[in-house]
Every structure is written in structure tokens, then in C-alpha cells.
């Protein structure tokens, strides 16, 4: 289709179309998982461990099983097959088999006629534990290799150790004019979706199992159910309900989903489970706490000659997405400013806390925070304005980074210009009265992962179209709307290609029986991948209609245009058929009209071990300026305004884009200033504040104004040029806040959240800093060495893994 780079010629894409499910959501009609009620439905409760680390000596279910109204009780041996989201971490059991690894780990499950009875039965289950030493921090897990939390992993309680080197960092440090080093800590935080996880399972008499769930990844739930239940996938149907917020927290297959499925199969009746808010805090999979050290060698004008980044992740009790998270803490440092030589050492520990996994930004907000605060310090030491420092050293578009990430469109310069100009940066930076501050930071994020989670060479997403004689179009795709608006994006893209009204489209989503596989709503992949598949499916339908209409009108097929619900001769638009008549003509000519489209990301340039994480079809870019007040007597921070410019490639729907920016800024501010998912080591490993009241998150009273600038630098790989916006804009918020606090009161808070207490401590300290003192001693493996593109590298590791000096 002919679309100008400015988006001219687009009729639906780029317009503030009301969400296709917007009024249903506002009427309370949208059915979330807990809204589903089936005849004869039973209720399930999980009995969870009260201790952080223990061997299970005995589970006595006899009392519970005898209670009137209890239909079944399950323990670990009923579901002995392990599962997990990553093929390399199949380390979870639906119910613990022989040991528990965090407070809240489920040990047994009951199904009963009502929730009260299920609750009583859950409490009648008796479990005897033999306590084991618990690891409650990164340092402890590194220091104490035993008892091991898991029998697998790189060593002791270290789940994974990674060492990668691109180019030669020692040479880079040697060539640099100055070398800087900093240490940072980013506290864990949780997704806190307003909807608690829920699932309903039902089995029909002919042997088919259906599971409805508030999941972001119905395809992976489908796989996990088939594996653990040992059932043919063809007999299992997973339906993802619209999520009442996900943010990554509903991306793992969960024990409760498997448990209700098993109970339903055993009893032959539908079974529902809905987690309490406290259980949601304990099932977690959120932001990893990460300790980081960054060492950077720069030239006088700020070019990065070498960077060595180390990260230490607190993984919690299971693998979850953790191996990928660990790689992500080292992957995207290179896509904003060129890094000539780059080295990454990363490790993830197992600890006796709820497992960590992907939360909005997955593994990248922590290193981005470190990098952007570090750069602010470097800019000051070099006497360069932080905005100018960044503008002077941007990764060029259409280039390869040191770690072989292929950058396509790159609109960061425009983003920086927008927030600098919009905020009056030049008049304000270092010129505001004491107590007022302004800070800047930038970032980048992937638009979907280049490789699937489990190895296969199939598409990452598929879209199917069915055209009705009445002119309606049903679009089938396994995607799932978690609030980000993916249903609307899908309708807009199809409507654009077929020239129809998006409200004439019906979206059928997230159903493993009805919809082609889409890998799920995670890693900001949906708009780009689903969008491309939708364009392909719609263009194939268009071709059929164009042929039929060209024959009817007696014109060549190339002259057939689509728009405004008409299919017409572009050289004489009065010669036209309505879209419905065009479908009728096509159906008469070809038979039933249905088409498919699919999308597979382009092959990655990176070929070394560990290169599965980082490559993406495109990268989005953001820049933020935060203006705030700090009260030096109380340490209280009040954010006045945030300016956020985001390069979304092509804006498919500005209302959705602005909404994702504002939501990301909100969530970033929560992490920057207050949110903490922390546990009491001296109280048996319980969560410090597992409630919505005490786990502090920003309310209407704290949320500042956000000025959003949509930057469009179309990417050749994006549908109509579109890139992601759901996660990227969160990333620059925490560092911009910290940089603004320094501008306001002259203290460096090298740790989020930036609480008043930390500011006061920093103000009182001689170094005017609050943050970690150092990193634990660790023996890192010899790195996988990969020559950079500018050294003539091919993306593969060098055969010789000895240190550079030894090789020279």
C-alpha cells in the first residue's frame, strides 16, 4: 500500500479510534476469569507453606478429605511432572513434592462445594516440615552454597552465571581518557494488577478439558497443561480471559491453573480458583532485585571506549523467566550510545522468596537505571551537559551494536530534542533554586524477542480472517488484550488494509481451539508481530476481492482501491462496489473467503551462545525529563511534571500510545519512589507488606502531570512502521528522578526506591551519597569472546576463550 513516511494516506491507522471493547469495559460487561460461573462449579483453595525453606516430612489430608462438601484433595504426588516457562528451568511442581522453597509455595489443594468449605478444608490439612537454612539475600546465596535450594544450576545457590565479552574491554579502558565506576541497587517490586489471578477448569463428558484463565500466555499454559497432565494437547483448550492488568505477572504457567484442571478431571465438575490479594503478592514473578556495578572508559568528549557491566540478581525460589531476565540485564546497554568494547558478567541466585520474573521492562529497568545515572555523573565530571553528551553519541540507525543487535529506525535524537525543548531544560538544569531539580534520562526497548521461548522454527504469531457476505470480518488471533489495547490495534490494522470501519470487525482472541498461536502478550511483541501477520492476512483477502471486483468492473486488478467501506476504481471512484458486495463477488468467484497471515522475526545477526536474548525486529526509544521538589528537612520528594518523548515508529492509535506512556511513567514513578517487594528475614521469610494499603503505590494524589510527545520514526520491520510503547517509557523514569534529586539537593541516591530516609541519610553523609558499597567477590567464568562488527567479527564467538592478553 502506498503510505508516505509521514503517514499520509492512512485512514484508520494513526487515528484516535475508541477501543473496540471500550464501552463494554465501561459497562462492566467484559467477563474476567473470576466472573465466569458454571453449573455445578466447585471452589478450590491451595494450602501454602508457612516456612521459607523446608523438607516436607508428612502431609496429612485425612481430616480435610472427610469433611462434608469436600470433593477432592490433591498433594504433590498427584502431579509429579515438573514444568516451568523456560525449557532450561523446568523446576516447578503444581504442588510441592518433597520440599518447599518460599513462604506461599503450594503443598496441597482442595475442591469443595463452596468457598467457605474449601477454606475450612484447606486449614484442616496438616503438614510436617523439617526446616532448612533459608537464603534471604544475594550475598547470603553466594556465600552459602548449601543447603541448595535446587539440585540444578551453575553452582551452589547460583542459578546461572554468564560472562560475555565483545571486543576487548581492557584495551578500551587503556585507550580511554578517563574511567569511571559506580555501584547501584534496584529493589524488587511487583506488578500489582488490580485483578487477582483466577482460573476455571471444566471437563466435558466427551473428554475435552477447557481452562479459562487470566493469563497473558495461553499458548504456554496449553503446553504446560499437556505436559503435567500428560494429556494430548488436542484435548485441551485454553481460553485467556481479558486480563485485569498483567504487566508480566500473568506470563508464567501457574500451579493454580494446573491444579484446577486436575481437580476438574478427577471430579468431573467445573472448578474455580481465585487467588486472594495476599496470594498474588506471594506468587509474584516480578522485578528482580539487582545489584550492579558499572565501569566505563570514555574519551574527553564522552564517547564510550569500553564498558564492563556486572549484575547480581535475586531470583527467588524458582527459575521462571530468570535466565532470560539475567541476560536482559546485560543486553540493551549498547543500543542507545555506541559502546566500542563491552563486557557483561551476570549471575542469578536462588533465594527463599517468591520467584522473580518479568515485570514491565523485563530485566532492563535495572541496568538502564544504573547506566543513565552513571552517565549523569560522567557528564558532570566531563563538564558536558547531560543532554548534549547523549546527543553527541547516538547509535546510528540501521547499524549493528558491539553485541550484534541490529538497530533499525532510531528516533532518540528527536526524543531528546522534544523533552529538552518542552521542559525548558537549558534554562533550568543546574539553575533552579535549591530544593528544586530537573533530571534527564533515555532508554530503549525491544519490540518482541527475535527467538521464541522454546526452540522451534514456526511463526511467532498467526492471524486468520473470515469474511462474511454481510461485509463483516472476523479476525482470529491468539493474542490477548491485557489492557494495552491489542484488540483495537488488530482491528485498526485489518480495517486499514481492507478499507472498512474497525467496528465492523469482530476480534476472536486468546483461544487455543479457535485462534492461531500467538506467543502471548509479553516482551512488547504484539503490535509488531501480530500487526505484520494481520497485514499479510488482510492483503491476501484484498487480493481475492480485488480480482473479483476487477472482473466485475472490467478494470485491471491494480486499479482496485479500498476505502470508506467501498471497493472502487481508483481512476473513477464512482465505479464502486460496497465492501459487502465485493465479498459476495469474491465468494461467488473463489468460494468461502478466508485467509491467513503469520510473522517470524528476521534472523538475528548474533550467533554466539547467549545471543537469544536481546535481538529484536526493532527497538523503541524514549527520553524523559523529570521536574521535582525535594524538602531537605524531611527528604520528601514531590514530582511536579514528567516530559516523556517516545519513538513509537508509527503511531497506530495516539490515545493508546499516550495511555501506555502515562501508565509507564506512573509505574516507573512507583518503582522510583516507593514500591518495594521485600521480605522479613528475621520473621520466617514473610512478605513485609502483602496488602494494597501497605505496599505503597502512587494514588491519584501523587500522580504528576505528564507531557507526552509522540515521535514517529517508522521502522522497516514494523507494521506501517510501528514499534512498541507498552514498556519502553517506564525505563528512563527512575534514573531521571534520581538525576533530578541530585540537581535539587546535591545528593546521589544510587538505589531505588528513593525514599525520604535515604535522602536524609545521604544529606548527612560525607560522600553525599546513599547506595551499595560494593559487590560480592565472585569467580566469573572465562567469558565467551565475540569480536565486534568493527573488528571484522561475524557474530560468532572466537574459538579461543583465553583472556585477551594471553591471546596477544
Amino acid at each position, binding site marked *: 500500500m502506498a503510505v508516505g513516511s509521514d503517514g499520509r494516506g492512512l485512514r484508520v491507522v494513526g487515528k484516535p479510534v*475508541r477501543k473496540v471493547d471500550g464501552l463494554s469495559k465501561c459497562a462492566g460487561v467484559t467477563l474476567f476469569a473470576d466472573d465466569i460461573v458454571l453449573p455445578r462449579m466447585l471452589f478450590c483453595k491451595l494450602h501454602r507453606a508457612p516456612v521459607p525453606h523446608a523438607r516436607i516430612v508428612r502431609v496429612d489430608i485425612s481430616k480435610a478429605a472427610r469433611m462434608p462438601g469436600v470433593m477432592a484433595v490433591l498433594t504433590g504426588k498427584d502431579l509429579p511432572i515438573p514444568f516451568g516457562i523456560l525449557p532450561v528451568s523446568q523446576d516447578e511442581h503444581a504442588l510441592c513434592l518433597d520440599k518447599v522453597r518460599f513462604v506461599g509455595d503450594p503443598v496441597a489443594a482442595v475442591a469443595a462445594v463452596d468457598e467457605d468449605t474449601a477454606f475450612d478444608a484447606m486449614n484442616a490439612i496438616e503438614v510436617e516440615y523439617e526446616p532448612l537454612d533459608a537464603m534471604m539475600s544475594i550475598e547470603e546465596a553466594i556465600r552459602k552454597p548449601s543447603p541448595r535450594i535446587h539440585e540444578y544450576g551453575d553452582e551452589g545457590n547460583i542459578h546461572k552465571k554468564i560472562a560475555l565479552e565483545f571486543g576487548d574491554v581492557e584495551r578500551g579502558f587503556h585507550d580511554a581518557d578517563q574511567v569511571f565506576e559506580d555501584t547501584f541497587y534496584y529493589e524488587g517490586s511487583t506488578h500489582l494488577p488490580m485483578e487477582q489471578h483466577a482460573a476455571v477448569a471444566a471437563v466435558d463428558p466427551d473428554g475435552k478439558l477447557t481452562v479459562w484463565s487470566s493469563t497473558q500466555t495461553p499458548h504456554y499454559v496449553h503446553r504446560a497443561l499437556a505436559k503435567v497432565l500428560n494429556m494430548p494437547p488436542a484435548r485441551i483448550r485454553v481460553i485467556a480471559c481479558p486480563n485485569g492488568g498483567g504487566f508480566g505477572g500473568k506470563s508464567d504457567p501457574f500451579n493454580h491453573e494446573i491444579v484446577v484442571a486436575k481437580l476438574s478431571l478427577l471430579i468431573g465438575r467445573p472448578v474455580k480458583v481465585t487467588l486472594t490479594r495476599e496470594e498474588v503478592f506471594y506468587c509474584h514473578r516480578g522485578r528482580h532485585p539487582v545489584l550492579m556495578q558499572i565501569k566505563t572508559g570514555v574519551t574527553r568528549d564522552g564517547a564510550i571506549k569500553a564498558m564492563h557491566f556486572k549484575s547480581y540478581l535475586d531470583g527467588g525460589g524458582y527459575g521462571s523467566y530468570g535466565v532470560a531476565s539475567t541476560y536482559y540485564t546485560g543486553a540493551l546497554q549498547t543500543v542507545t550510545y555506541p559502546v566500542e568494547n563491552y563486557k557483561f558478567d551476570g549471575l542469578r541466585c536462588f533465594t527463599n522468596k517468591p520467584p522473580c520474573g518479568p515485570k514491565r521492562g523485563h530485566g532492563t529497568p535495572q541496568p538502564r537505571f544504573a547506566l543513565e545515572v552513571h552517565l549523569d555523573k560522567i557528564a558532570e565530571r566531563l563538564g558536558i551537559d547531560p543532554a548534549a553528551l547523549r546527543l553527541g553519541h547516538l547509535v546510528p540507525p540501521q547499524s549493528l551494536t558491539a553485541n550484534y543487535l541490529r538497530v533499525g529506525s532510531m528516533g532518540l535524537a528527536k526524543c531528546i530534542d522534544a523533552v529538552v525543548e518542552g521542559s525548558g531544560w537549558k534554562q533550568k538544569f543546574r539553575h533552579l533554586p535549591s530544593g528544586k531539580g530537573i533530571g534527564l534520562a533515555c532508554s530503549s526497548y525491544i519490540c518482541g524477542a527475535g527467538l521464541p521461548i522454546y526452540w522451534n522454527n514456526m511463526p511467532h504469531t498467526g492471524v486468520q480472517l473470515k469474511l462474511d457476505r454481510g461485509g463483516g470480518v472476523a479476525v482470529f488471533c491468539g493474542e490477548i488484550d491485557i489492557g494495552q489495547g491489542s484488540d483495537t490495534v488488530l482491528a485498526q490494522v485489518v480495517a486499514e488494509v481492507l478499507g472498512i470501519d474497525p467496528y465492523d470487525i469482530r476480534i476472536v482472541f486468546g483461544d487455543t481451539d479457535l485462534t492461531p498461536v500467538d506467543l502471548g502478550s509479553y516482551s512488547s511483541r504484539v503490535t509488531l508481530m501480530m500487526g505484520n501477520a494481520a497485514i499479510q492476512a488482510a492483503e491476501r483477502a484484498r487480493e481475492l476481492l480485488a480480482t473479483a471486483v476487477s472482473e466485475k468492473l472490467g478494470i485491471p486488478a491494480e486499479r482496485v482501491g479500498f476505502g470508506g467501506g467501498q471497493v472502487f476504481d481508483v481512476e473513477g471512484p464512482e465505479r464502486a462496489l460496497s465492501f459487502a458486495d465485493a465479498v459476495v463477488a469474491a465468494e461467488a468467484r473463489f468460494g468461502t473467503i478466508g485467509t491467513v497471515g503469520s510473522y517470524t522475526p528476521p534472523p538475528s545477526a548474533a550467533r554466539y551462545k547467549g545471543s537469544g536474548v536481546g535481538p529484536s525486529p526493532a527497538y523503541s526509544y524514549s527520553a524523559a525529563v523529570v521536574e521535582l521538589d525535594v524538602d531537605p528537612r524531611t527528604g520528601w520528594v514531590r514530582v511536579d511534571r514528567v516530559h516523556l518523548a517516545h519513538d513509537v515508529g508509527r503511531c497506530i492509535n495516539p490515545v493508546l500510545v499516550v495511555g501506555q506512556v502515562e501508565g509507564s511513567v506512573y509505574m516507573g514513578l512507583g518503582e522510583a519512589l516507593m514500591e518495594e517487594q521485600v521480605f522479613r528475614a528475621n520473621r520466617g521469610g514473610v512478605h513485609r507488606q502483602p496488602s494494597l494499603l501497605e505496599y505503597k503505590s502512587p494514588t491519584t494524589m501523587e500522580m504528576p502531570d505528564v507531557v507526552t510527545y509522540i515521535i514517529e520514526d517508522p521502522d522497516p520491520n514494523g507494521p506501517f512502521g510501528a514499534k512498541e510503547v507498552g514498556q519502553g517509557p517506564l525505563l528512563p523514569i527512575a534514573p531521571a528522578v534520581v538525576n533530578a534529586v541530585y540537581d535539587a539537593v546535591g545528593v546521589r541516591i544510587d538505589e531505588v526506591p528513593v525514599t525520604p530516609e535515604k535522602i536524609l541519610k545521604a544529606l548527612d553523609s560525607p560522600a553525599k551519597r546513599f547506595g551499595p558499597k560494593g559487590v560480592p567477590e565472585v569467580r566469573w567464568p572465562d567469558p565467551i569472546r565475540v569480536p565486534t562488527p568493527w573488528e571484522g567479527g561475524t557474530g560468532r564467538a572466537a574459538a579461543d576463550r583465553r583472556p585477551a592478553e594471553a591471546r596477544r
Partner: protein
Amino acid sequence: MPQNVKRRRGRGRDSAAASHSSRSKVHLRLRVNGEEQEVACAPHSTLLEVLREDLRLTGTKHGCELGECGTCTVLLDGRPQLSCLLLTLECEGRPIVTVEGLAEGPRPHPLQIAFAELGAAQCGYCTPGILCAARSLLDARPSPTRQEIREALSGNLCRCTGYLKIFEAVELAARRMKDPAAQPSEETLHGRRL
């Protein structure tokens, strides 16, 4: 054992008594969205439970069942109340409005239209509660200031929107209730252009 993990849903409860009393139900007459409803429920049932489970009005949601998030907000006597903290017994005969009762027949309330139009409902899970709280605000203050909106909604958590589109949607609905032709600003829909 962390105490709350043991609790049924959110609230602590003497479980033996709960099981016993759930067998002896009370009969109540409720006035929900202008309709008389008769229910037989356990005396300890919350209004939230009766609305969702007995009357199948699942538009009202829950985020905690402990009175912490505002997700379950409904209007009782025209005022926003947390239905998870109300005993249904206390509500007998008093007018109750839920999200299902905001529209007039097939016509959505201006708040519902504005929320849908501006993306003030992303996942839509906090939306029913926020709409009820906003409706009560507009009943009392037809042209609320931004600060009044912030305060009126300060008990409602939303994890998706960052609240700003919600404020703008309440303002737009308020304007439209006086002038049906009122439109959102360019910046609301497109962000700021340089």
C-alpha cells in the same frame, strides 16, 4: 504462617461459624439499580458477594476484599461505598447502584462514553468502581476542579492508566453534561506536538 494467606478471600472469619451460618440463610429485599431483588444469603455475606454471586452482577469487581483498593465501589444511598466491607444486611431497602445501573437504557452515561473515548479504561478492571465514585462526584459537583477529582478518586487504585486519562474523562463528561458538543483537547488525544 502469614496470617492473611489463611484467610478466606480477604477477611478473617471464624470458619466454623461461617460454615454453620452459611446453612441458615437470611432473606433480604434489596433495591439494586432501581429494581427490587429478593435474596437469600448467609448473614455474613458482603454486598460484593451478593451482587456478584447471587445477583450475577459481575460488573462490580474486587481487588482485595479488605477495603484497600476501591475496586468494589458501588453507590449506596447515592454515596460511594466499598461493597467488600458492607454486610448485605445493612443494605436492605436502601438504593444501590452498580456499574450496570449507570446507563439509561441503551444509552451509556456520559462518564462511560468519555472513559471509553479517552482510554481511561485500559484493562477496565478498576473502571466500574471508579465510574461509580466519579458519578457520585458529578452528582454533587457538576463542574469539579482537577483537585476535587483527585480527592474524590483517591481511594480507587488504578494500575494501568496513571490516572491522568481518568481525570480528563471525568472533566470531559462534566463538560458534556452541560454542552453535548464538548470535545477533548488535541493534546489529550495526540500528546503534545512541538
